[in-house]
């Protein structure tokens, strides 16, 4: 049992070793090991300001709805394990809950939260 998570950790090491190895290989094979510093590509123009900025994420209202559902997933996984054993009540309770959330989605949809343009 303890070796289960050891395997996961080993895989992480393998992945890191591969990534590190390919970077080292690239140092040896590339035409010049030192990276070149460029300006960002802007169709052939120079930038007037740095791109990192407060971005207008038009999907922001959607993230709120997503969060509601995402928290629900916390219950969904443990529920999935016991649902069949706990009987019809467990299934009904979960799907009433999901139904309430879904009603919220439909309401948000009608309010236009799913349209950005």
């Amino acid at each position, binding site marked *: 049992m303890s070796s289960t998570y050891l395997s996961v950790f080993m*895989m992480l090491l393998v992945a890191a070793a591969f990534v590190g190895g390919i970077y080292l290989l690239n140092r040896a094979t*590339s035409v010049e090991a030192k990276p070149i510093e460029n300006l*960002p*590509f802007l169709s052939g123009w120079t930038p007037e300001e740095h791109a990192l900025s407060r971005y207008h994420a038009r999907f922001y209202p*959607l993230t709120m709805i997503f969060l509601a559902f995402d928290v629900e997933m916390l219950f969904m996984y443990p529920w*999935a*394990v016991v649902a069949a054993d706990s009987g019809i009540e467990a299934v009904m309770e979960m799907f009433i809950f999901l139904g309430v959330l*879904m009603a919220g989605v439909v309401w948000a949809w009608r309010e236009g939260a799913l349209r950005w343009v």
Partner: protein
Amino acid sequence: MVESLVEVAPGWVVVAAVLLGLMALVGACVDGALAAHSDRRSMLAGVGKPIWETARLLRQRRRVLVASDPLLWRVGGAGLLVVALLMVVVVPFGRWTVADLSVGVAWFNAMDVMVWALVWLTGWGANSAHGLVGGHRFLAQALSYELPLMFALTAPAVAAGSLRVSDVVVAQQGLWFAVWMPVAFLVFCASVLAFSVWGPFSPAAGGDIAGGVLTELSSVDRFLVLAGRYALLAAGAAFAVPMFLGGGSGPFGPEWVWTFLKTAVLLAAFIYIRRLLPAVRPDRLVEAAWVIGLPVVLLQVLFVSLVSLGGGL
């Protein structure tokens, strides 16, 4: 056929990693062959594409950008491959599995959520307008596919009464889950394409924004992102096999052959879809995913739980 699965020693993760790498390579070769075919050249001429691309990128010089965030940028790029490798630790190969986590299904889910951050960082870290737009496009897309994906993953878990991948495989003795929960299977496949930024779900790397999250990447940095995409596709296909396609069960022969075959066929289908469909912009996808996709998957889960209550099919 698959009675029980054996957990092998941690050293075998190297084999698992090599297998995933091979699968990703096969996927890239298939893509090259299909590309050559659509350009009316012989398919054989395109098979070498991943080799040549790798050689080209290894010889290329790396770039950094003015005032970029190299650390987060590289973490984003290299992370895709790492995540794909971490996904396959829970995937059984025939009757062997390297890490049969008691929460294997949730583990896969946790890994695929990491892709949100990684793709976004790949776009954001470069300090480039096109990358920034691409990264945010991916987040918008992720908001649409993630919930259907999560519920699609719960369906097999409910039917098996367990989050352990080996239990899910054993629960498919009689009938593959793909047969009696087709909606969950299809949604899962679509989500694999989506978190791999692939085919119709690739606006984050779209040509209309000069490659989006890929715009500023060169050399090994680009190689890792492209390889990571193929690896994610391959990992998704590999995970679909124990979840929906009965794992290693087959009419004859050793089980690992069947795992391999099923994965390869599904991966080839994923690769093929790339050219088939137009891109679906995230702002178009969102309504379909939330108002149609989500309820349909929920109904699928309801159906599965009612069937499981009645003792299964």
